[in-house]
């Protein structure tokens, strides 16, 4: 018993230090792991798989889906299960499509603007909707995904209805000192891959920063007890809208990327299934981990491709796998690698 207590205190102390200091060994260990991850994404994978457009495309999808899911992870951190991310990816995609085809605006400007459009819409819709909690919020956001799809379908000349917007221009080349280093043509998906990895790495850094900052702690306080947060002067409504808007921003950026990557967007590009998937990625990776959404997304996207071999039963096996994960790994895949954390959980309960 004495030992147990000591253990508990030690782990909590470590956690506390990471939270409010970011200076101890644990944090530097994380930095190292993150650097290794970036190295693999930017160097190892392109060298090993660079010749296979198929794999590169799969990984590009995985990276941007991770990025979009990280937004959902942020809404999880304020204690809301968000099933509207598909809607905001669609908004971002359409924003980019309309800006680039109709007004000829460069992709590089469209990308952030689409994110902002999504975030603005998210803030407007989120303000009333975020007052709902639990299943009520989940139901409403699920309906929102369908509502935005219908909006796109009935958008008349602006969204071009069911025919969608096609022939979206590719991103312009990136050059440094007049030397083109990345040319986005149809032949090679590698430049898109690099762009996707950049988004993902920036996304992880951003979320990491967020969760270590006071803002992250305020978000966490909202999840644990909104009334108490209010009583100590936290403007609960403001911060939850902020969290939701950040989430929508990431959804919008992801949507804009895919619009340029596939060069088209339709009302059915993001449906309820996509909203559900974004959430599942977070969950399967582990809601307690910043890498959770990325691990979940890559694992599911890759396993889905691997299951091509058993084509007829692909989706079925996929579904069963996910249920199995929920039943036997309720804290996500990353919880496997953290046995000592698990032990702590046992002590706690």
């Amino acid at each position, binding site marked *: 018993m004495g030992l147990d207590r000591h253990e*508990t205190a030690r782990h909590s102390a470590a956690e506390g230090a990471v939270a409010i200091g970011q200076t101890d060994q644990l944090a530097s260990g994380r930095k190292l792991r993150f650097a290794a991850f970036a190295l693999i994404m930017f160097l190892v994978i392109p060298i090993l798989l660079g010749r296979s457009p198929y794999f590169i495309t799969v990984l590009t999808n995985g990276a941007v889906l991770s990025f979009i899911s990280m937004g959902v992870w942020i809404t999880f951190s304020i204690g809301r299960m968000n099933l509207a991310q598909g809607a905001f990816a669609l908004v971002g995609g359409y924003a980019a499509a309309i800006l680039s085809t109709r007004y000829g605006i460069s992709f590089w400007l469209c990308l952030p603007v689409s994110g902002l459009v999504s975030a603005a819409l998210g803030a407007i819709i989120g303000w009333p909707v975020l007052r709902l909690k639990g299943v009520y919020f989940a139901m409403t956001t699920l309906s929102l995904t369908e509502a935005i799809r219908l909006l796109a379908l009935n958008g008349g000349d602006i969204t071009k209805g069911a025919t969608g917007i096609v022939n979206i221009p590719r991103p312009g080349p990136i050059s440094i000192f007049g030397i083109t280093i990345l040319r986005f043509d149809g032949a090679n998906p590698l430049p898109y891959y690099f762009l996707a990895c950049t988004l993902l790495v920036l996304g992880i850094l951003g979320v990491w920063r967020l969760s270590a900052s*006071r*803002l992250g702690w305020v978000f966490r306080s909202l999840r644990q007890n909104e*009334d108490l947060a209010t*009583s100590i*002067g936290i403007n609960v409504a403001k911060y939850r809208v902020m969290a939701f808007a950040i989430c929508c921003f990431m959804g919008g950026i992801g949507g804009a990327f895919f619009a340029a990557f596939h060069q088209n967007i339709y009302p059915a590009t993001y449906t309820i299934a996509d909203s559900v998937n974004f959430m599942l990625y977070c969950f399967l990776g582990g809601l307690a981990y910043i890498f959770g959404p990325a691990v979940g997304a890559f694992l599911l996207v890759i396993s889905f491709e691997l299951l091509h071999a058993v084509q007829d039963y692909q989706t079925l096996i996929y579904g069963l796998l996910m249920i199995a994960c929920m039943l036997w790994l309720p804290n996500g895949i990353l919880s496997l690698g953290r046995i000592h954390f698990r032990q702590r959980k046992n002590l706690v309960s």
Partner: protein
Amino acid sequence: MTLAILEVQGITKRFGGLTAVNDVSFVVEKEAILSVIGPNGAGKSTLFKLISSFLPPTFGQVSYEGHRITGLSPHEVARRGVVRTFQETSIFKEMTALQNVVVAHHLRCRASSFGLYFSSATARADEERFRKSATEILVYLGLGPVKNALARNLPHGHLRALGIAVAMAAEPKVLLLDEPFAGMNIEETEAAVKLVRGVRERGVTVILVEHDMSAVMRISDRIVVLNFGIKIAEGTPAEIQKNEAVIEAYLGRADDELGH
């Protein structure tokens, strides 16, 4: 002459046909300890929510330092210095005691949201300050040894103290304590009474809602008695003990009270 810091003026709350609080008025003086007592269902908790703006009143208003705070959102009220605790032990369970109190320093943040995010120099200085001040508050409330324990692992008595520590971190000028002695044994109550007195000595006005009569009589400067939502008496502990209406209200309900 002492100064009034908080004034409750003719406040009324109706839920449908039920009047939970009916035309209650009283004045709280600066750095006093005022208790609101009454039998179960007398409207004490509702009154609390009305003062802290967690509920809007049907009629009447609350003023704080001469300004009306009724109608402000609850976090605004907290910002001005009227901070409440909760009846049940309400803390951030998945954080350590220290993290609880550091987060609760929110009102003292000088950095903007962007600053918070990018950890600007101001934000970092803030955090440093908060950690010091949080540790100081925890030590003061006897929680020093457990400051790094997860809140959900703390025993009941510590949780109550942590609840007060969280509220103190918001630098209240008026602290509303909802049944701070509920479920405590004699020793724990004794410690808690000391703690509340200590809080007052730091220049904080305390309003508390409480069942425990002996603790209330010892600690309070003034007592307000509610019954069926109506204020039936107000005065010093000595006056209240002699008050006919109060005795009747409690005797009339003696069976109920014993039932608990």
